[in-house]
């Protein structure tokens, strides 16, 4: 590459990414594990378990993604500030 590659972010700390990855993986794997919820009882307000359990995972997923968002954006901000501290000119734009 002939263009200099000025980094936009500083080096990553693995912690937040690992935790966010676990949260997101949970939100993907659990709703897809059909044997755990393919049953009728217990019903909730007449709704079989199979149906209300899956609907329940909608707000749970939203919460898990929300937590990941908080973790990742915080780390992202830190990484950006780390770069701005050294190059300075970048953040004027």
């Amino acid at each position: 590459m002939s263009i200099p590659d000025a980094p936009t972010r500083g080096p990553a700390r693995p912690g937040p990414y690992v935790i966010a990855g676990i949260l997101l993986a949970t939100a993907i794997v659990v709703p897809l594990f059909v044997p755990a919820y393919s049953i009728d009882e217990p019903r909730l307000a007449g709704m079989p378990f199979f149906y209300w359990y899956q609907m329940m995972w909608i707000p749970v997923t939203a919460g898990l993604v929300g937590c990941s968002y908080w973790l990742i954006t915080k780390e992202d901000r830190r990484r950006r500030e780390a770069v701005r501290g050294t190059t300075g000119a970048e953040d004027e734009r």
Partner: protein
Amino acid sequence: MSGLTVPLAVPDRPINGVALTIVIILFVLVAALGFFAARWRREEATGLHSLDEWGLGGRGFGTWVTWFLLGGDLYTAYTFVAVPAAMWATGAVSGFFAVPYTIVLYPIVFLLMSRLWSVSHRHGFVTPADFVGGRYGSKALTVAVAVTGIVATMPYIALQLVGIKAVLTVLGLGSAENVLLTDLPLIIAFVVLAAYTYTSGLRAPALIAVVKDLLIYLAVIVAVIYLPIKFGGWGTIFDSAEAKLGAVNPATGKPAGVFIPGAGSYSAYWTLALGSALALFMYPHSITGVLATKSRNTIRKNAAVLPLYSLMLGFLALLGYAAIYAGTKPIDLNGAINPQLVVPQLFLDHFPDWFAGIALAAIAIGALVPAAIMSIAAANLFTRNIYRDLIRPDAKPRQEAKVSKIASLVVKFGALIFVIAMDQSAAINMQLLGGIWILQTFPAIVAGLYTRWFHRWALFCGWAAGIIYGTIAAYNVVNPVTKANFGGSIAAIPGTDVQVYIAVVAFVINLIVAAGLSLVLRAFKVPDGKDITRSSDYGADENDPKVAEIQREYPLGEPGGPAF
């Protein structure tokens, strides 16, 4: 649903005047909004004369607009009409999988899409094929991704028309005897749609999506509270659904549907959900919605708030069961049963006329928004990756915007002709194939976001293998009742009897071919294409300089030339 094959003795439906009037008023309001959108947040100096402005709304949509735009984009009339229809006809495996599908979708989007946003923002990419071209420097791969996107989007647009048509049929517009009269309201609706998309670009569906969503939420919330109370609670609704779906169909000797999946359909259920989730954000219109956002984190924030729509989708799906209890009769103009009419018919039967009008308008407008975005996305693909990459490499932004506007008209009228001239079930089968095809662009797009390990020709061969297997496997699925090919999207994994979503098997084949050939091609040192992206591009945010600006500052490289 061609009028030609119709037995003429079937009486036309009565026209519901009140509901129809409300639908027309709301439609006119929305059309006015669509034309007004051209003036919304416009840069006075440049107007809408570039793809960034016309095709991506100026790349400036914040969290709220994006929420409505993506919601309007992903939850289409097809979702609102077809998912409950599938629940009504065959139950959980063909309908309710949409709930886990739209649940696992958002963690996946969270993981992938911010990187695509960053690199596209830096390099001015408008389409997924732009990114593939920039990353791999392979014209064959770029065109493969672009053509797959266009071909898979066309039947998707056609299905939006099927949704509008269902609403119009239920309202009593249309006649079994006159083909032209049947389709005239649909044609009018579409001409208006085409006109405001042409003038306003992506701003039109973004504004209209707000109105559409408010109407849909209103209709669904009322339906979900009012109908179960009227029918005596969810318990009775589920019991009648269980009884209907458990009844044996004499044509096949099997139960009519699945109320709660048994062990035999676990794999079908979760592969349908996962495969659809992986495929959805490979559709060009979803990526258009992503690239139109203002900053890197807008899309991540939306991944946390968009599941609200899934809740609505879940309840809408259950309305299919409510229709079973209510004994809704979705009789089409030709006297045959058409499940697509279930939800509009349910609304019309059980709501006061004026509210049925609002609900039906919500469904019809809910079809216009995605149809507009899809036609823009397909037009952008054509402009960038066929017109500019293959025909006119020196095209100016103004020319690109012009070509894209015209291409969006062509795409829409193509879909219109498709729906009018062909059987509706053809549109649905094509859509099914489209889902299988679009997933085959996943390795090229998504792997490229993280690694350059895959070889461009290996990705191309993987894509071809996935498309070929998927098409053949889908062709071999025969509908047990009608004996037609392309009868469904579930087939056994070759060599086993585990039933899964065909797209997922094709995807695995695609990956195996791509990985295996990459090893071979690397061993033989077959040359790679030129990669114009750099690792810092994948983390860039809105305040970071674009590549054009870096070039100006360090004029060492070739100025922005294509990487072929």
